[in-house]
């Protein structure tokens, strides 16, 4: 992932040289015939339970596992290291991140340049957020411009998710929640530690076969899964202001692992 940023810099600096040498490579090192490959597109789809997610509804159409009703005014999240695992053990990793803003449908679909060889795949894995190596302060200009950075005093790097809206609290009043996720800061008697808070998941039931046509992988996020399995999330306890709260950050890490399902289309 980080390598793509580095290679962009290198290309910028040595563009002409690189393209020259790649021509030479072709001449001198004939590549063994590759397996026929296809283009994959990645598309993100958004649900809350059985309902298609909608923004800024005047009512509160969604219900979490604790029965708390809510609506959504913002959803942005970041997925990286999407990897397709072949039966033979080969891995096809897309060297880019997918930053989705639910208010901008043009951010739902990505067309990675890396081609996918035909064959049988045992499954798909991804990283929610950035792993420690990729979660480096300030190196992604598009994310910087989107104010996606995670505060330095919470460990820096980038947000992994912002999910915001209103819920009806225990006194029957409307209140806001802001489920923001990133590096988890832990302060205890031994001092301050910053705990990487991304998670890697091999999505269950994600085997598929690539034939001789291009295809789409549809990732569906069910936002209700952030708030249950295994622990039910209480908006009254963890509403806004959870960024510095270690337990809340780690609970998202625990609960989030089943937020995505995927299918090939």
């Amino acid at each position, binding site marked *: 992932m980080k390598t793509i940023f580095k290679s962009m810099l290198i290309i910028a600096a040595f563009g002409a040289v690189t393209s020259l040498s790649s021509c030479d490579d072709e001449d001198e090192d004939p590549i063994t015939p590759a397996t026929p490959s296809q283009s994959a597109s990645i598309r993100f789809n958004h649900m809350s339970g059985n309902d298609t997610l909608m923004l800024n509804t*005047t009512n509160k159409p969604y219900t979490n596992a604790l029965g708390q009703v809510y609506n959504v*005014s913002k959803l942005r999240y970041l997925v990286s290291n999407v990897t397709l695992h072949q039966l033979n053990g080969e891995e096809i990793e897309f060297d880019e991140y997918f930053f989705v803003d639910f208010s901008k449908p043009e951010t739902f679909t990505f067309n990675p340049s890396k081609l996918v060889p035909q064959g049988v795949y045992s499954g798909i894995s991804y990283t929610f957020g950035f792993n420690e190596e990729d979660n480096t302060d300030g190196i992604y*200009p598009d994310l*910087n*411009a989107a104010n996606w950075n995670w*505060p*330095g005093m*919470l460990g820096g790097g980038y947000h992994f998710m912002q999910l915001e809206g209103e819920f009806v609290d225990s006194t029957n009043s409307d209140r806001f929640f802001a489920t923001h996720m990133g590096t988890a800061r832990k302060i205890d008697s031994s001092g301050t530690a910053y705990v990487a808070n991304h998670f890697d998941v091999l999505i269950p039931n994600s085997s598929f076969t690539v034939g001789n046509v291009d295809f789409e992988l549809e990732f569906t996020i069910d936002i209700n899964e952030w708030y249950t399995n295994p622990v039910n999330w209480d908006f009254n306890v963890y509403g806004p202001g*959870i960024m510095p709260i270690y337990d809340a950050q780690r609970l998202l890490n625990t609960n989030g692992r089943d937020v995505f399902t995927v299918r090939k289309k």
Partner: protein
Amino acid sequence: MKHLKKYQIIVLLIFGVSAFTACSDDDPIEPIPCSNCPTNNTPTPYSLKLPPLFSSSTTPLNIPADNPLTVEGIALGKRLFYEKRLSINNSISCSSCHNPANSFNDKGVAFSLGAQGQPGIINAMPLFNLIYADKFNWNGSANSLEEQALMPVAHPLEMMETWKNVAQKLQGDPTYVKDFDKAFPNEPIDSVIITKALAQFERTLISGNTHPDNEFAADFGFPVTGAIMTAEERRGFEVFDDPERGDCGHCHGGKFNFNWTDYSFRNNGLDAIPDSGLAAVTKQPYDIGKFKVPSLRNLIYTSPYMHDGRFATLEEVINFYTTGVNPNSPNISPDMFHRTGANGHIINLTSQEKSDLIAFLKALSDEEFVTNPAFRP
């Protein structure tokens, strides 16, 4: 479209004439002087110089394909920016409310006065780094600088003039005819071309020489080119960045976002019954009260603050954010509540933290920008 056709005909004419003259080498034809002759002016492409921190970014520059920056276009835009004939009684120019000495803002005035001395209804915005923005005005009513520049001329509270009159006034001035012909050869002088020129000039208004710029650019490995932050300013940035104190970053970014805004539209909780804001454009009830998140650059030149200029000082602004936010304001951004913590308590800043924060905010002011002779007539 009409312009294009006309232009194409002119190009064809030029080709025809040159083809003819090329064949008659022995008998060169003297050009016949005329007022409507097509000209061969070619505007000179202009390459914008960006501060180190900016140039490190791949954030796209919003330059429309049909209005590239040219030396002549920018010069014409600057002349027009200071041109009072854009107003009904030749009394005010763009610069009357967007004064370069005040970061192109009307300092000290909540509502600028129009051509006949009448006050407007919204605070004039400062103009800088607009090349990075994609929506303009407090309520996002313009999608480009060209579109924005169309608005004040005919606005009944601003310049009160018709575009037809403006075009006629400028068409009658031979020095303008010459300048337009240099910048936009063989195009009619009209609102389209005038706003293109104004937009070109506005895109050159880059402000990026402050203590934080110098310090953060050094973090990216650029050589230090000017003064960096003082200890007080650095403490202030800590308050700014701390999610449990300032938490300014969700809307205004931080050391990695040199725009100091994400250009989003938000309700920051000023009022129980807010002004319409973005909803005036989108007609969506959930956009009521949302205004453009302004950049934090050049604040010492741009008081008063907020879309209606209600706060005269930065102290008032900080006091508002610590204790004055109305949590029940419709469509208030949930990001306003991070600082309230899990228990819902308000986190107040100490007076030391407030003064440090204000020192940092003031440090984002760029003296070179407000004294730059390139931006003056």
